C-alpha cells in the first residue's frame, strides 16, 4: 500500500506542478483604457491598470464610463466600449507546433476585433461567441454589438 500511495502522491504533485506552469503564461496585455475596468480572475476582482497582463479565463468588464483595448500575444487587438463584458475562453499560440486557437465570448456591449496571427495562420480557429451566434473570423476587422 505504502509505495502505491507514494507513487500517487508524487504523480499528483508532478501533475499539479505541470498545470501550475502551464497556467503561468500570460496571453496578452491591457494596452490602453479609460474609466473603470475590472477583471474577474479565479474568484477575485482586479481593478485594471494600463499594461496589466491578461490570462486565459479572464473576464473583462468595462464600467458605465470605462473602455479598454487589449492586445493578445498573437497581435489580435480587442477593443471594448462602455458597459461591455467578455471572457477570453481559450488562447493557444504555438505556431511552430501548429497549435492555434482563440475563443472569446462576449456577453454584452460593443466590441471591435482586429484579427492577429491566429486568424491568419489558422482561419478556422478564431471564434467569437455571442449569446445568439458564433462568428468565425478569417480576418480582419469585425464590429460586434450585443444589446
Amino acid at each position, binding site marked *: 500500500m505504502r509505495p502505491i500511495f507514494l507513487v500517487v502522491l508524487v504523480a499528483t504533485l508532478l501533475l499539479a506542478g505541470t498545470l501550475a506552469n502551464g497556467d503561468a503564461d500570460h496571453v496578452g496585455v491591457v*494596452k490602453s483604457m479609460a474609466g473603470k475596468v475590472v477583471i474577474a480572475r479565479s474568484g477575485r476582482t482586479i481593478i485594471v491598470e494600463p499594461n496589466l497582463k491578461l490570462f486565459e479565463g479572464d473576464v473583462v468588464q468595462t464600467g458605465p464610463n470605462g473602455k479598454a483595448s487589449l492586445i493578445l500575444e498573437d497581435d489580435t487587438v480587442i477593443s471594448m466600449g462602455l458597459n461591455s463584458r467578455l471572457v477570453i475562453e481559450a488562447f493557444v499560440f504555438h505556431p511552430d507546433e501548429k497549435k492555434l486557437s482563440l475563443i472569446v465570448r462576449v456577453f454584452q456591449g460593443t466590441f471591435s476585433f482586429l484579427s492577429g496571427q491566429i486568424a491568419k495562420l489558422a482561419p478556422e480557429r478564431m471564434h467569437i461567441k455571442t449569446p445568439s451566434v458564433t462568428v468565425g473570423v478569417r480576418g480582419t476587422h469585425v*464590429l460586434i454589438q450585443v*444589446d
Partner: protein
Amino acid sequence: MRIVPHPVTIRGIHDTLEGSLYMGIVVRLTLLFLLITLASSCAKRTLVALVPDPDGRTGSISVLNEAGSVAIDAPYLATTIGDPKERPAAPVHLDKKVLDKIFAEALSIESKRPLHFQLYFVKKTRLAHDSEKLLPEIIAAIRERKSAYISVIGHTDTLGTEDWNMELSKNRALTVKDLLVKQGVDSNTIWTTYRGQEYPMIPSGDNVWEPRNRRVEVIVR
C-alpha cells in the same frame, strides 16, 4: 346609492367605470408584457459587421448558429440575430457613419497593431549594418505607442551545438535590450526571451550557416 332614483343608469355608469378600470389594467399589463418581451428579445440581439481594417483591407467572416449561417466578405455589411434559434439575417449594408456612431467608444480606444522588427547579426552579437539602421525606427515606434511591453526574442542558425546556440541567442537578445536601454527605453518594459536554434525563420539541417536565422525579433505593442 340606494336613494338614487335611477339605479339602472347609475348601475350602468358603475359598470362602465369598473369596465374602464379593468380595461386600464389589461392595457397596462399588456404594455408591460410587450415591454418585457421587447427588452428580453433586445437582450439577446447581436449585431455583427465587417469593416475595412486600418490598412484598408477587408477580410471575411461567417456568422453561425443552430438555425443556419451567413458569410460576409465585403465591407460595411452587417447581420443581426435576435435569438439563437433564429437564422442570422441576410447581410445588409450599414453606413460607415452609423457604425462609427454605435462603436464610437470602442473604436476611440482601439490600439494600433503591434509592430515586428527583425534585426540580423553578422556573427555572434555583432549587428548587421542595415539592422543597426533600424534602431531609430524601433525607438520611434516605442515612443509613438508609449509602449510599456516590448518583446526581444533571440535566435540563431544551426551552426554549433544546441547549448552554444541557446547561450548565443540569449546574448543577442541582451545585446538588443542594452541598445534600446541606452536609447532611453525603460528596461522594465522589455521582456527578453531566447530560443536558440529551435525556431528558424528559414528551416535548415544541422550546422547550416544561415544569415536570416541569426536574428533578434523585436515586438513593439
